C-alpha cells in the first residue's frame, strides 16, 4: 500500500534493477527497525530518516526513497546492531547509483566528481599544489627505497586546517626515524566517488591509483585519513602486495617498539572520538587509545558514547560535499558529550571529524579544543609546538 492508501503495482523492471544494484543485500532484512532506532539523524530531526523503510523499499523495488538516501553518513551505527547483518549503507549507496541514472542527485556532487576527474581531488584544487602542505618540512619524495609511503589524502593535502594534521604526522614519523616518503603526484583514493554512488567511475579511479602505487614500488602504505585507509585496506585489489595501515596503527606500533617517545608533558584532560571508518568499520579502537596513553601528562576520559557506540561527526558518506542545516549537525551533540565528560581537548584521528567537530566546538566559546591525535602527540615531542 502506498502512503495515500491506493495499492501500488510493483514494477518488475525496477525491482530487477534494484536487486542488481544492491546485489540482493537488502533481502535478509526482516524489518525489526533497529536501524531506524539507532540512526543518528533521529537525534537531530523531529521526523527521523526511516532506514527500515528505505531497506524495505529496496527489497520491493519501489522507487519512493527520495532525498533520504543522501542523508546517510555511512557511519555504520545501524550495521553494528543489525541482527540480520544487512550492510545498510551499501544498500543505500546502491540506491544512490540508481539516483544518478535518474538524474536525481543533490547539487554539488557532479561538481565534486568533475574535480576528481580534472584535478585528481574532490576539493577542486590544482594538482600542482599537492606538496604545498609540507613546505618547510623535510618530507622526501617516495622513491621505492623507503619503508613507508605516507598517503596524505586529498583533504589533508589541500584543506588548510587539515594540513596541520599532515605536518604533525610527518614530524612524528621524522622523530621516530622511520623511513618514509610521499608521492608528489599522489592520486586520489576515490572514497568520495564511492560514497556518492559512482561505482562505475570508482573502478577507473581504483585502476589508475593502483597502477601508480605499483609503478612506485609501494610495499607498505600508511594513510592519514580513515576514509582513504578503508579504501586501500578493503576495496583495492592489492592481494597482499601492499600492507595498508592507518597512521594511528603505525604510531602506536612505533611507541610499543620504543621508536617513538615523548619527552614533554601535555597537561590536558582529553577524550577520544572514534572515527566511524576506524572504529566500527575496522575495530581499531585501541591503537589510538594506546597512543593517547603514551603522551605524558594526559588524563583520558571517555564520552557517554564511545567505541562501538560512538556518535558520527556527520562528515562521512559524501556529506562533506553537502550542506547540513544548522541544528542538524551531529557534531554539535558530540562536542557537548565531550564537554560533559570534562574534556578540555577532543582528540580524534580523521580529517573529516576534525573539521566537523571543530566547527561545532566554535559554539562552545573556546572551552573545548579539537585536535588530531597526531597534533597532540607532536606537542609532546618536546620540539616546541606541533605546528607553526
Amino acid at each position: 500500500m502506498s502512503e495515500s492508501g491506493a495499492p501500488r503495482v510493483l514494477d518488475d523492471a525496477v525491482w530487477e534493477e534494484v536487486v542488481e544494484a544492491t546485489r540482493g543485500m537488502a533481502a535478509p532484512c526482516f524489518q525489526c527497525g533497529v536501524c531506524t532506532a539507532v540512526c543518528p539523524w533521529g537525534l537531530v530531526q523531529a521526523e527521523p530518516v526511516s532506514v527500515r523503510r528505505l531497506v524495505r523499499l529496496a527489497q520491493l523495488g519501489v522507487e519512493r526513497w527520495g532525498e533520504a538516501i543522501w542523508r546517510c553518513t555511512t557511519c555504520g551505527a545501524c550495521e553494528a546492531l543489525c541482527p540480520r547483518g544487512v550492510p545498510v549503507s551499501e544498500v543505500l549507496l546502491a540506491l544512490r547509483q540508481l539516483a544518478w541514472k535518474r538524474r536525481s542527485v543533490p547539487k554539488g556532487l557532479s561538481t565534486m566528481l568533475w574535480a576528481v576527474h580534472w584535478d585528481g581531488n574532490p576539493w577542486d584544487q590544482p594538482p600542482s599544489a599537492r606538496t604545498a602542505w609540507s613546505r618547510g618540512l623535510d618530507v622526501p619524495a617516495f622513491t621505492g627505497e623507503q619503508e613507508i609511503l605516507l598517503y596524505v589524502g586529498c583533504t589533508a593535502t589541500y584543506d588548510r586546517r587539515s594540513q596541520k594534521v599532515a605536518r604533525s604526522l610527518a614530524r612524528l614519523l621524522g622523530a621516530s626515524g622511520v623511513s618514509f616518503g610521499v608521492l608528489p603526484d599522489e592520486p586520489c583514493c576515490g572514497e568520495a566517488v564511492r560514497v556518492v554512488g559512482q561505482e562505475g567511475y570508482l573502478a577507473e579511479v581504483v585502476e589508475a591509483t593502483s597502477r601508480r602505487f605499483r609503478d612506485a614500488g609501494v610495499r607498505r602504505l600508511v594513510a592519514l585519513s580513515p576514509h582513504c585507509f578503508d579504501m586501500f585496506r578493503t576495496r583495492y585489489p592489492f592481494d597482499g602486495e601492499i600492507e595498508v595501515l592507518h597512521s594511528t596503527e603505525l604510531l602506536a606500533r612505533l611507541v610499543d617498539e620504543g621508536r617513538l617517545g615523548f619527552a614533554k608533558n601535555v597537561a590536558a584532560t582529553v577524550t577520544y572520538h572514534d572515527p566511524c571508518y576506524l572504529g566500527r568499520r575496522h575495530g581499531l579502537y585501541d591503537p589510538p587509545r594506546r597512543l593517547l596513553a603514551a603522551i605524558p601528562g594526559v588524563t583520558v576520559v571517555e564520552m557517554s558514547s564511545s567505541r562501538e557506540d560512538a556518535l558520527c561527526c556527520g562528515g562521512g558518506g559524501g556529506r562533506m560535499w553537502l550542506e547540513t542545516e544548522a541544528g542538524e549537525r551531529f557534531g554539535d551533540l558530540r562536542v557537548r558529550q565531550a564537554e560533559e565528560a570534562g574534556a578540555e581537548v577532543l582528540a580524534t584521528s580523521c580529517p573529516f571529524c576534525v573539521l566537523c567537530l571543530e566547527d561545532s566546538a566554535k559554539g562552545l566559546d573556546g572551552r573545548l579544543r579539537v585536535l588530531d591525535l597526531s597534533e597532540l602527540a607532536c606537542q609532546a615531542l618536546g620540539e616546541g609546538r606541533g605546528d607553526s
Partner: protein
Amino acid sequence: MRPLDTVVCVKVVPKPEEVSVDPETRTLDRARARSELNPPDMNAIEMALALRERHGGTVSLLSMGPPFAAPYLQVGLAMGADSAYLLSDRAFAGADTLATSYTLAKGIEKIGGWDLILCGEESSDGATGQVPQGIAEWLGASQITFATSLAVRADGRLVGEREIRGGHEVIAVPLPAVVSVKLGVNEPRFMDMERRHSAAPVTVWGAGDLGVDPAWLGFEGSPTAVGAVWQARTRERRREFLEGTPQEKGRLLAERLRALLAL
C-alpha cells in the same frame, strides 16, 4: 515544437594554473600543463543536453585542435552528446579567432541540419570571447551572447537571458542561432559510465574534408598580431592568522579593518 539539433563548440584548454607565458614566441607554454574541457564549454554542453531533454533532437560536439583532443570529446559523449567531430589538420594551426571561427563554421556546415550552436562565453586560455560571434557571422545566423538561460518559445523563437549591469535582459531571436553561454550558469552533469564505455567514436576531419579556402586557415588566415605577452605578477598575501575564540577573532578582525579603512 519540433526537435532541436544543437552543435556545441568546445575547446580543449590547458589548466590555467599550469601554463606559463613564453615572451619570445608570445604564446602560452603548455608543454607541461594538463588539459581540460574549457569550463564554460561544459556549461554549454549541459545547456544543450537539458534543451534536448525538453525538446528532443540531437547534440553534437565540435572542436578544432590536435589529435590529443579526441579523448576530451569522449568526455562530452559520456555526458550524453550523440556525436563528436574533431577538426584536426596542421593547416589549422596558429589560428586566431577569425580563422578559428571560419574553420568551425565550415565544420558546422559539414555536420549540417543544425538549429542551434552553443559555445562557452570564452576560452580560459585565449579569453578573447570572439569566436561565437565570428561563427554567427560566417553562418549568417542570429546570436545571443553571454546567455545565462535559454528556452524555445511556442512560436519557435529562441529566448535567452543575459545579465546586464543592474538587472538582466531577455532577447528573442529566430532560429537558427548561435549562443555563447556564461560560465557557471548550470552544474554540468557528470559522465554516465555506461556511455563512457560504449559511446560513439570521434569523427576526425581535416582541411580536405571541409571544402575550405586555405587562405582563411590557420596562421596564414589570421590577421591578429600579438604585440607582447607577459606574466601578470601575483600579489603576495600577508598570510596573517588571527588567534583566539571566534569572538576574539571577530574583534581582532574588526580592529584591523578599522585601521585599514581609517574609521
